[in-house]
């Protein structure tokens, strides 16, 4: 049984205005203490878990994990390898924010065993970066990217955000062109989502967030796919693009419902057994997390065992995010009944509406289906 690993580093220099992740600015917790706690948590978890195959991926997410020094990252990777095992060719990713990186630091990450960098560029426009509340400039992003290359990173992904207030489809196309010129292996392009509890949400409620209209949003979404495909990127997930061979192995596991153990405050975990699987997360507050771990307690919260129907729904609403789609035969293997038995008439209806198509044993979203993915997903709930 493969289990991937995720380590959450919940601290940031400053919280971005759209961010609803578990991240905190200005914490008094020393990074060393936090890292030690995560190692301790891994030990506690490993004691309770039967031995499993070496992990295919390890992912440092945040927050801003690139606030960690290379030796801290090295300690975590060593602990993970020792306690759970890491495959020889394991994908080890760290999320990094421009402005927190130096060539030296990047080389240190490489030496520690990190082989993939996910760079939070977000935009090549300083104006946009200020609007989003980012701490870096476009210049710093380009410098960081170059430094990563110089440090030997051959697998770099960048994140971009579109549909930002004030943005036009033409402006976004220009951003995409810059991204292509930069030439990362992987590009995640997200429409700005206004999440509850963020400053943007407040602004939206007050009518102060002039988001692009729906037509423009659709145009940006469509342009992203067209331009990046033309530049040799595969569109493999609703918001993700990669050069052949460079899809994020770790992230694909989320959509394929692979096992993943999360460590650190607010980290999420999923195991496919017992029964139809179980999801949980750790305490959001780093303080509570540290305290629990110091008492040798796993800070598990929101433990959610999945019912058969939940697992089936996940199979579709996660699996269909991948452009390869889902295989009805695999559904049948996992659940012991056919898709038609579980969802009578649903596939036929979706085909008739032009929202999905079938190819070589897979069901996948059409272009229209991608635009209206939620409308497809709800049919499987």
């Amino acid at each position, binding site marked *: 049984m493969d289990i991937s690993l995720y380590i959450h580093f919940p601290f940031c220099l400053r919280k971005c205005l759209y961010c609803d992740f578990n991240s905190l600015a200005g914490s008094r917790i020393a990074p060393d203490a936090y890292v030690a706690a995560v190692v301790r948590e891994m030990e506690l978890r490993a004691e309770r878990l039967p031995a499993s195959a070496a992990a295919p991926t390890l992912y440092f997410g945040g927050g801003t994990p690139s606030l960690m020094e290379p030796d801290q990252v090295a300690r975590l990777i060593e602990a993970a390898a020792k306690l759970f095992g890491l495959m020889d060719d394991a994908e080890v990713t760290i999320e990094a924010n421009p402005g927190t990186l130096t060539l030296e630091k990047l080389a240190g990450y490489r030496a520690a065993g990190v082989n993939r960098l996910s760079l939070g560029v977000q935009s090549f426009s300083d104006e946009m970066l200020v609007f989003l509340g980012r701490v870096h400039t476009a210049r710093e992003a380009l410098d960081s990217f170059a430094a990563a290359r110089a440090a030997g990173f051959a697998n770099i992904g960048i994140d971009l955000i579109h549909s930002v207030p004030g943005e036009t489809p033409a402006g976004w196309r220009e951003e995409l062109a810059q991204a292509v010129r930069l030439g990362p292996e992987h590009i995640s392009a997200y429409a700005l989502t206004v999440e509850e509890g963020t400053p943007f949400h407040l602004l939206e409620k007050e009518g102060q967030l002039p988001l692009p209209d729906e037509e423009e949003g659709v145009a940006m979404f469509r342009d992203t796919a067209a331009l990046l495909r033309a530049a040799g990127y595969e569109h493999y997930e609703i918001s993700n693009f990669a050069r052949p061979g460079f899809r994020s192995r770790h992230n694909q596991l989320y959509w394929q419902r692979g096992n993943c153990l*999360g460590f650190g405050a607010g980290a999420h975990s999923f195991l496919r057994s017992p029964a139809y699987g179980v999801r949980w997360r750790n305490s959001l507050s780093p303080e509570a997390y540290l305290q629990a771990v110091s008492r040798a307690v796993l800070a598990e919260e929101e433990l959610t065992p999945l019912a058969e129907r939940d697992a089936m729904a996940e199979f579709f609403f*996660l699996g269909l995010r991948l452009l390869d789609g889902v295989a009805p035969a695999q559904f049948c293997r996992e659940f012991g009944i056919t898709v038609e038995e579980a969802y009578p008439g649903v596939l036929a209806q979706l085909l008739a509406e032009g929202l999905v198509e079938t190819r070589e044993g897979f069901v996948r979203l059409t272009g229209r289906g991608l635009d209206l993915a939620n409308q497809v997903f709800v049919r499987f709930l």
Partner: protein
Amino acid sequence: MVIENIRNFSIIAHIDHGKSTLADRLLEYTGALSEREKQDQFLDKMDLERERGITIKAQTVRLNYRADDGRDYVLNLIDTPGHVDFTYEVSRSLAACEGGLLVVDSSQGVEAQTLANVYLALDNNLEVFPVLNKIDLPAAEPERVKQEIEEIIGIDAHDAVLASAKEGIGTREILEEIVKKIPPPQGDPARPLKALLFDSWYDQYQGVVILVRIIDGVLKKGDKILLMMNGSSYETLKVGVFAPVMREVPALSAGEVGFVIAGIKEVKDAKVGDTVTLLHNPCAAPLAGFKEVKPMVFSGLYPIDTVQYEQLRDALAKLKLNDASFSYEPETSLALGFGFRCGFLGLLHMEIIQERLEREFNLELITTAPTVVYRVHKVGGEVITIESANLLPPVQEIDHVEEPFILASIHVPNEFVGAILALCEEKRGVQREIKYLTPTRVMIVYELPLNEVVLDFYDRLKSISKGYASLDYEQLDYRRSELVRMNILINGEVVDALSLIIHRDKAYYRGRDLVSKMKELIPRQMFEVAIQAAIGTKVIARETVKAMRKDVLAKCYGGDITRKRKLLEKQKEGKKRMKNVGNVELPQEAFLAILKVE
């Protein structure tokens, strides 16, 4: 009990003027209500009644009172329903009394409803004396209100009792006035039984309970009784009084008020206003004034979830057990599926029934726009009555259509007169009278088509008068009008549940307003949705709900999955509450929009 020591009375008051609280004080003072039984507003039994502060079913209670003259009296308080829809029931309850307390809020003054009921009481030759309630309020103006009572109603108010039911002020004085001012009942126990049935309800353990006022004769347990208008006979199983809980007595004699249980199965066999007599020794003639009450307002009730159809049917049957004035029969709508066309006495009655269905029976309902009963004169001379727009024959078969009119009396402070007149004119009203009752209070009388009143008249009346206007109405006649059927089409398909009969001159305006309101309420679908209003084949208004272009979550990683599943579940739940018309999903609100058009 000697007949001279009986007093039968009711309390006449506008909603909120404190009738129920006053009744509680009378019960308490006379010891009818022990501390243990004390619960505010004892007489309003249903939760709904208590919440709305109105009485739907008449209640009656016997009070024992030793007056200042040293004699023991039996006072029967006969509570009356408090709303315009139940005027007939009120008149029968009043017919069981010799006197009435006119309770007027000393800060508000006389309202239309009060006035209507006072007139009913005076028509029934009741001795009416005024009580000024809420005298403890800083805004109380007893002298002004006394003057108003004298000017508007024409009864002497100079020695009106000043009371505060809330504070218990004036309770004893009221009881003394009842004894002194209200005459004892007339009647002869030696004559054949003649009793007025003034209320009935269904009790699941005892069957139908009827309330009677014995006019002449004596009624005992075991007597074989005849309901004269209904023509059915029963054996009396129990007779008794409410004191305030049910208590059996050996007999009820002339002048007394009490209940009878006689194995009557359904309330429709125990109609208010019927005369109860003895099967083998009947009285010569029934009491005058019996009237069959008929539903005036109809609307379709449909379960949102079709699986609730059976539950709805059972619930309607249960409500019908207790309410003879309410009717229902199965109806099928292309848009809404299986449901029922229900008939009500009026708008409040309709609201009450709907609310009870939803609250007591946990049903989720879609209500179609209320409609009235139209008379359609067909080309061949045949006349049919219809209570649903969908039953209107094709235009070529219709010679003309008649609609019911009412005579509406609206009481309102003078600053709102202009706005109220504008509303009445807009509603196709014909002005009868504008009368200044006092320098600041005006009575506006209009002839109005009921079809306009059932839609939103009452709500608008309340809103433009800031709640100060009160309305009373009586049925007038049927009048010929230029009425047409307006259909609403969704993507070319007629939604039968949204069709309505409307005056030709108003169709264009209302059609446009309705489709634009519906545009706001219909969520975007994956395709364009056209909303049209049409008369026959002529489209008079159109709006378009643009197709949804984008509905996708940008991010869904490990930490998002549970939350996103919940979001999708919520989205799915929202879809479930919609009704599918063709392939368009319509929310419940779209069906209600028709009621909210301005």
